[in-house]
């Protein structure tokens, strides 16, 4: 995807937004210009801080999920014993919507950062775990035979085969679930808290009918998602360059 195409798409979306705002003519739907002004106005007056708080929460959950789910997924995918023991547990837990545990988590971990980070972590953990497990267990036997025949034992297989094989899988899982993570964050921040973009949108703006400010919050949350998406994209290009190599 070229930068120019991205810029064109961005402008196109702005134009569409403006058109809808003109046609609707309601104050619940301001155009991009007043929202941009509100964003610039609000950023140094609290919104910036809320952005950082939310960003910190997502990044902390993502890092936590990666460092726990990748090894766990590798263990499940690589070891038949682990797989047999824990796969049924994962099978039952995976489809449960983790967000329903939010009330319990709030009660147990309080209304601060810990509960939000844990909530998002819970959602991400299972997404990444399952994808990494499948990537590790779906490795072609020919590849494992070949590397084992070079004298590789378990340690070397882990280092040179399983780990690199799961990097793109983990990043793909992350890319898919980063949207979910921010949605969960929004929900978790929209009550029983005093900081974060969810709080800013629902309590500080929507609550007092300040629509341009509310949209400034929405834009900030979208930017947060976009930023994370870009970072994951960059990581993928850096850590999995063969995925982008042109075929012969």
């Amino acid at each position, binding site marked *: 995807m070229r930068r120019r195409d991205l810029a064109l798409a961005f402008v196109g979306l702005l134009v569409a937004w403006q058109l809808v705002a003109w046609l609707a003519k309601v104050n619940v739907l301001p155009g991009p210009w007043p929202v941009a002004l509100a964003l610039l106005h609000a950023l140094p007056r609290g919104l910036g801080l809320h952005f950082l708080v939310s960003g910190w929460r997502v990044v902390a959950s993502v890092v936590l999920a990666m460092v726990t789910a990748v090894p766990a997924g590798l263990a499940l995918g690589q070891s038949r014993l682990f797989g047999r023991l824990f796969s049924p547990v994962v099978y039952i837990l995976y489809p449960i919507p983790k967000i329903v545990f939010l009330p319990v988590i709030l009660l147990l971990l309080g209304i601060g950062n810990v509960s939000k980070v844990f909530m998002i972590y819970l959602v991400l953990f299972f997404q990444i775990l399952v994808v990494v497990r499948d990537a590790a267990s779906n490795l072609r036997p*020919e*590849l494992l*035979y*070949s*590397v084992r*025949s070079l004298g590789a034992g378990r340690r070397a297989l882990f280092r040179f085969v399983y780990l*690199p094989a799961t990097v793109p899988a983990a990043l793909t899982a992350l890319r898919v679930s980063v949207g979910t993570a921010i949605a969960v964050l929004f929900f978790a921040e929209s009550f029983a808290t005093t900081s974060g973009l969810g709080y800013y949108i629902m309590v500080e703006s929507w609550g007092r009918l300040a629509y341009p400010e509310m949209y400034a919050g929405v834009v900030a949350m979208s930017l947060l998602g976009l930023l994370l998406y870009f970072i994951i994209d960059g990581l993928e290009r850096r850590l999995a*360059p063969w995925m982008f190599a042109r*075929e*012969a």
Partner: protein
Amino acid sequence: MMIGIEALTFAYPNQPPVFQDFSWQVAAGEAWAVIGPSGCGKSTLLYLIAGLRQPRAGRLSVSGQPVPRPRASTGLILQDYGLLPWATVWENVALVMRLGRLYRAKSGPPDGSRPYPRADIGADQVDRWLLRLGIADLRDKFPNQISGGQRQRTAIARSLLQQPNLLLMDEPFSSLDALSREDLQRLTIELQRETGVTTLVVTHNIEEAVYMGRRILVLGRAPNTHAWVIDNPGAGAPAYRGRPAYWDKCAELRAALEAGAEAAAAETARVAAAAPAAAATEASGGAS
């Protein structure tokens, strides 16, 4: 003796045996081809020798040692998918060097039967093998960016870098186009002569078996109870392919395969008739 197989029996779980009371010997430095119909156990035999499968009964030794796990001094080249997709050509070959460093503490003497890869391989040796296999220009390409023939050259370079005394190849060239296939067959013969490595090429292709194997093991339908060997002293000469002797040998091998199929069919009928176990019908051929 490079490979010694005595009274070997092997079966996959819940399946009839692929080998039963099977014996076979390979001397050091020989170039063998193993041929037989699909499902006859050619690849299984290779995996057994590679230490990737364990016999259910009988003895199997390589360089006089049993093979409970793959040994680094046996090279294994498969039809495809043997290269790390995330590593460049250079990195794929250099994997042997990195493995050697990882297991430095365990690395045994550089010769003989080594379970772990050599610890004394340097980057210059990686470069030299890339050059020898004609893939030096591709060093920074990923496997999905190069042709099938180039991928097999990479796999061969990687295997030879660890200076194996046994090279096992499982249908190594069967997914290549005709010209690349002949090219790599010739190259393999050259390398076999240069290094003196014992080679075993599993193939379902009669011409390939006759061109590459100075001795040919013919397997029939499972269970294989008997090593049926055809000697083919003309193989290994680059010009062999054009000679009448080559075509004669191809015809002989084809007849042997057909006879094997008939013998197997007769054997199946005989077993079905619940006759007592006896020696199976045997066609001609110098069993070792």
